[in-house]
C-alpha cells in the first residue's frame, strides 16, 4: 500500500495538516490566476450575454442546444466517479480507496457546481431559475414533473445535497484533528465544523453506520442522475438521440471520465502537496485497470449505438449517422474514438500503468475525448432532423468557447480553496490501513 514505508499515526496527522496550515506564495499565485481566468473567461462573457441576450451564443434555430449543454453533461459526468466510486469501494471494503476518496468526492461536488452554473448560463434569464423548483412563485406556477428537465432538477439537487453530506460527514473526524492542531479563529471555526467530535466509540459506531447508509443511497442516486441526463436527449425523437442504450451509455461514460479525472487530480495532489507517501502505485494500478474495463464497455456501447442506427435502416437515422461519421464534425468523432477507445488500451502494459506521467497524459486525453463526445452528441444531432429543410449547422461562438475555458478555471479555483479548508486525504481512514499500534509489534 505504501511506496515509501509505513508512516506513524502522528506523521499522518502532520503530513496532511501541513498541506492546510502551511501556505506558500505559489499557492496564492495559482489561486489568483485561476480566479482571474474564471472572472475574465467565464463571468465577464456571461455578463455580456446577460446584457445582449442568449443570441450572443452560437445557438439558433435547428440547433437550440449547444456547447453549454455539452459542457453540462461533461461536468455532470466528471462528477460521477468521485462519490460513486467512493461509495462502491466503501461498501465493498476496498482499502485502496481510503487515501484517494476525499479528493475524489470533492471533485464530484465541484464538478456538480460547475455543471449547475452551465444550466444557469444556458437558460438565459437566470433570475427566473427558481421557477424550475417546486416553490411558490409570483406566477402561481408549479413545474411539470412529466418533463425530463424536471427529472434533472430533482436528480441534480438530490445528488448535490447527498454528495455534500457524504463528504462533510466523512470529514468530521478530520475537522476535529484540524481543530486540535490550530489556534484562534481557525480553531473556533473547526470546533463548529467538527460538532465537538471526540472520537468516542459511540461516535465512530454511529458514523460508520450512517456513512454506510449514505453510501448505499448514493450509489443508485449517481446511476439515476446520469440516466436522467441521458433522457433529456433520449426521450426526444431526434435522430441520433432517440436510443434506448443512452442511459447505460451516459452512466458508463460518466464513470469513465470521472475515473480519468481522479487520476489527473491524484497526480496533482501527489506532485504539489507531496502526498507520495500516501498515494502510491497501488492506487495508480487499480485506477488504470478500472479505466481499461470502462474503456472496453464504452467502446462496446459505441459500437452498439452505431449498429442500432444502421440496422434500424430509417433514412433520418442513417443521415444522422452519416453526418456524424463523415460530416463536418467527423474529425472530432474520430478523435474521440482514438482517445477513448484506443489510447486507453496502452494501459494494458503494466509499464505504462505504473508511470504517473504517462497515466496523466492518458487521463487528460480520455477527458478531452469525453468532452468531444458530449459536444458531438449535442452538435451533430439537432442540426440533422428528419427533413433537409430542418437541417442546419452549429458552431460555438467565442462567448461559448470562453465560458468553456472559464469553467475549468472555476473548478480549479474551488479545488484550490478546498485543499486549504478540508484535509484532502482522510486522516483517520489512512490510519485504518496502517498496521495497528501493538506492544508486541
Amino acid at each position, binding site marked *: 500500500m505504501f511506496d515509501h514505508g509505513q508512516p*506513524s*499515526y*502522528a506523521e499522518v*496527522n502532520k503530513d496532511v495538516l501541513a498541506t492546510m496550515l502551511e501556505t506558500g506564495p505559489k499557492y496564492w499565485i495559482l489561486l489568483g490566476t485561476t480566479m482571474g481566468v474564471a472572472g475574465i473567461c467565464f463571468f465577464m462573457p456571461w455578463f455580456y450575454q446577460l446584457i445582449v441576450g442568449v443570441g450572443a451564443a452560437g445557438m439558433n434555430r435547428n440547433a437550440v442546444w449547444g456547447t453549454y449543454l455539452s459542457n453540462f453533461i461533461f461536468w455532470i459526468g466528471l462528477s460521477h466517479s468521485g462519490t460513486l466510486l467512493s461509495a462502491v469501494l466503501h461498501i465493498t471494503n476496498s482499502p485502496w480507496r481510503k487515501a484517494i476518496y476525499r479528493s475524489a468526492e470533492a471533485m464530484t461536488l465541484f464538478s456538480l457546481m460547475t455543471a449547475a452554473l452551465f444550466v444557469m448560463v444556458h437558460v438565459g434569464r437566470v433570475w427566473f431559475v427558481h421557477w424550475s423548483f*417546486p416553490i411558490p412563485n409570483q406566477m402561481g*406556477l*408549479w*413545474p*411539470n*414533473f*412529466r*418533463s*425530463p428537465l424536471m*427529472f434533472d432538477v*430533482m*436528480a441534480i*439537487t*438530490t445528488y448535490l*445535497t*447527498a454528495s455534500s*453530506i457524504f463528504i462533510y*460527514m466523512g470529514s*468530521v*473526524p478530520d475537522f*476535529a*484533528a484540524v481543530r*486540535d492542531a490550530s489556534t484562534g479563529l481557525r480553531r473556533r471555526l473547526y470546533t463548529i465544523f467538527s*460538532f*465537538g*467530535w*471526540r*472520537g*468516542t*466509540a*459511540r*461516535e*465512530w*459506531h*454511529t*458514523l*460508520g*453506520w*450512517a456513512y454506510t*447508509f*449514505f453510501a448505499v*443511497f*448514493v450509489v*443508485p*442516486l449517481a446511476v*439515476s442522475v446520469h440516466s*436522467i441526463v441521458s433522457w433529456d436527449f433520449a426521450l426526444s425523437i431526434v435522430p441520433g438521440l432517440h436510443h434506448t442504450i443512452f442511459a447505460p451509455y451516459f452512466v458508463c461514460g460518466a464513470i469513465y471520465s470521472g475515473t480519468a479525472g481522479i487520476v489527473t487530480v491524484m497526480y496533482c495532489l501527489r506532485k504539489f502537496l507531496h502526498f507520495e507517501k500516501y498515494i502510491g502505485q497501488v492506487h495508480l494500478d487499480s485506477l488504470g485497470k478500472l479505466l481499461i474495463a470502462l474503456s472496453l464497455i464504452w467502446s462496446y456501447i459505441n459500437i452498439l449505438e452505431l449498429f442500432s442506427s444502421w440496422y434500424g435502416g430509417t433514412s433520418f437515422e442513417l443521415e444522422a449517422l452519416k453526418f456524424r461519421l463523415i460530416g463536418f464534425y467527423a474529425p472530432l468523432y474520430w478523435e474521440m474514438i482514438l482517445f477513448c477507445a484506443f489510447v486507453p488500451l496502452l494501459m494494458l502494459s503494466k509499464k505504462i500503468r505504473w508511470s504517473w506521467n504517462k497515466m496523466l497524459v492518458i487521463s487528460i486525453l480520455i477527458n478531452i475525448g469525453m468532452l468531444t463526445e458530449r459536444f458531438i452528441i449535442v452538435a451533430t444531432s439537432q442540426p440533422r432532423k428528419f427533413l433537409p429543410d430542418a437541417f442546419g449547422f452549429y458552431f460555438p461562438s467565442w462567448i461559448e468557447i470562453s465560458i468553456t475555458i472559464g469553467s475549468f478555471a472555476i473548478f480549479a479555483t474551488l479545488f484550490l480553496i478546498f485543499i486549504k479548508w478540508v484535509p484532502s486525504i482522510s486522516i*483517520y*481512514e489512512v*490510519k*485504518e490501513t496502517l498496521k*495497528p*499500534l*501493538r*506492544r*508486541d509489534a
Partner: protein
Amino acid sequence: MAVIGAFAYEEDFLAAAENLKASGFDNISLLSPLPLEEAQEVLGLGKSPVRRFSLAGAILGGICGFAMAAGTALVFILPTGGRTIITLPPFLVITYEMTILFGVLFTLLGFHFVSGLPAWRDKPYLPSANIDHFVVVVEGAAGEQVARAEAIIRDAGADEIRHVEEDQ
C-alpha cells in the same frame, strides 16, 4: 470527576476498557484516532438505530415525492395526447429521487440524534486521542471510585492519567 487515561497501544487500551467494565464502571467513553470494532464490542454497541431513521426517511420521501408530482398534476391539469393525468413512469422518477433525498437527510438527522453531536458542552477529552493515543474516560466517578478507576487504568499500562472536573 472524570478520570482520563491515555494509552500508546491498542491492546492496553482495550484491556483497561474491559477491566473497567468488569469492575462495574458503566459510564466510560473510549476515545481513539480511528474506529475500533473491539472498543465498540466492549461497550456492547450492536446495530445502530440510525438505520431506522434511514428507512423512515426513505419511506416518507417516497410518499412525499409521489404526492408532490401527482398533486401538481391534479392542480395544474395538462392533458397530453389523451393520456392519464397521473402518469406513473415519470412520477416514479420523482418518487425515486425524493426517496433518496429524504433517506439521506433523515440518516443525517439520525447520526446527530444517536451520536449526541453537536456537543453543546465541553466533555473530558485529550487532543492526542485524535493523533496517536487511545484514551479511556471514566465519567461521573466519585469517592473511592476515582482511586479504583485510576488503579485499573495504571495497571493496564497507561502513559498518562488525569483527573478532570466535569461540566454539570
